[in-house]
């Protein structure tokens, strides 16, 4: 790249955004809206990015039976991998029991993580409906939604997790 064009880009940027003193190099290409949409699976705690679809704990029990139970145990307890069911009081026992029900601050996290990372050997293989359903099932096992409650992009963020206010910023 020519020095002069580099300088002129820098000047342009400086004029356009006076608060940022940024230099740009003109390297890389603009990303298309489609390629961003295809990869942007991020779901924040307000759940604004949740996809269409829905499911109930009743549907989720089937998904769980076939796709999750072998590792996470019958009804989310006693599996070889992270336990999924528990109460906040159990954080005070020794050793503490950190589970979705006892520890996780947001229900949206359960949807997000299951969708991109579970089942362990076939991540990304569940449909949005299946993820809503198995999320509902795990929340139901924790006593947080009823068996027939429909979870979707509207209702999932409304589920208040018991340990919602249990986290404080690192005071070190």
């Amino acid at each position, binding site marked *: 790249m020519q020095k002069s064009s580099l300088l002129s880009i820098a000047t342009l*940027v400086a004029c356009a*955004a006076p*608060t*940022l003193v*940024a*230099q*740009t*190099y003109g*390297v*890389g*290409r*603009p*990303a298309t*809206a489609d*390629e*961003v949409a295809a*990869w*942007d*699976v*991020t*779901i*924040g*705690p307000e759940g604004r990015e949740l996809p269409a679809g829905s499911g109930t704990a009743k549907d989720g029990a089937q998904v769980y039976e076939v796709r999750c139970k072998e590792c996470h145990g019958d009804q989310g307890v006693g599996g*070889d*991998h*992270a336990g999924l069911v528990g109460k*906040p009081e159990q*954080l*005070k026992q*020794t*050793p*503490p029991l*950190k589970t*979705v029900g006892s*520890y*996780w*601050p*947001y229900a*949206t*996290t359960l949807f*997000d*993580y299951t969708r*991109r*990372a579970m089942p*362990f050997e076939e*991540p*990304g293989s569940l449909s949005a409906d299946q993820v809503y359903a198995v999320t509902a099932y795990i929340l139901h096992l924790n006593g947080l939604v009823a068996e027939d409650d429909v979870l979707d992009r509207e209702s999932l963020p409304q589920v208040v997790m018991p340990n919602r206010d*249990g*986290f*404080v*910023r*690192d*005071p*070190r």
Partner: protein
Amino acid sequence: MKSRDATRRSFLGTGALAGAAWTACSAPEAEAPAEPDQPSSLGTPVSRYGQRSPHEKAARGVRESQTPEAASSRTPLDQTYGIITPSALHFERHHAGVPEIDPATHKLLVHGLVDRPMAFSVDDIKRLPSVSRVHFVECSGNSGGEWSPAGAPTVALSHGLASCSEWTGVPLRILLEEAGIQPEAKWILAEGADACLMQRSATLEKALEEGIVAYGQNGEAIRPEQGYPMRLILPGWEGNTNVKWLRRIKLTAGPQYVKDETSKYTELMEDGTAWIFTFEMDAKSVITAPSGGHMVDGPGFLEISGLAWSGRGKIRQAEVSTDAGQTWTEAELQTPVYSKAFTRFRLPWAWDGSETVLLSRCRDETGYLQPGRAELIEQRGRKSAYHCNRIKGWHIAADGSVTSAEV
């Protein structure tokens, strides 16, 4: 020139003989004839990619796991020298295995609260201004066994989820500025291209100040286990935030509260609350020689050597006690001392052959002093699990055997 070619031909032509010579050399030396004063044959020819001596066996420690793709392997810190961890011995902690990535098709997306979402190829990233920095990467679960009085029996088991490399790459600031940072952006979300799309949130402030998108490790391309073709380096921050196989950075207004910053990598306190976003790794040190599992071969001179590091800057001082903490002696620091990097310390010592305990502690440039176990538990309780940086001791028995000292 001619004679050399002739020799080479004859070497290649006598493969069987050469092979026999090899076997003889590497066989146990029990019945070996007296070493000649000069080798009687030529060595092996030049080669394209070097290998270590067949006598060297240092290896990462791997524990049996039902899910070896979501597991860790540990650096044998007592078998590394100086401050750089050989890339092949850099610890691993993967959550869904090591992906196989073609650098020709890999891309890094930068989007979210930016003026223009951008895609960068590996070649794009290599065109941009680069930096090389020596930094440790440490899993915040490192030394988890040290919460107990007994501690882990070897330094690989007690401290081997930490390694140090020279990382080369482009400052993350440059990539974010190519996309144009919007004023509402305060955090980033980094995502890897592994099977679970590993994600972590980090502050935009850290990303701009010190973040590196690294493609080089110790002079060559980053190893697949360390994030090939590119990874995020957030110097001094817990290992998990240094997202490997980096493929996406989203600028956001707040953190995303993903599984690995809520369910995992948070510090539970005794009262049931938990500290979240505990990014910095506190100062820590450990003696690597002699250390657990070693056998000191009789009294006499013995250099004590170890590693110290801090996620908050440079190590200012390392001290060693050879009498279980009654007295402390300042050890010599290997220079240059880099910020947020392994710092080698050394102390000449003569073992008198009697039972004792060796300890090390360090202070970083902020003045922070590495705590003992009791002090750490006073600050953090017993349920924290991560970020254990207590002083580690090694017990030397009269027979020279070295084990973890109970504290």
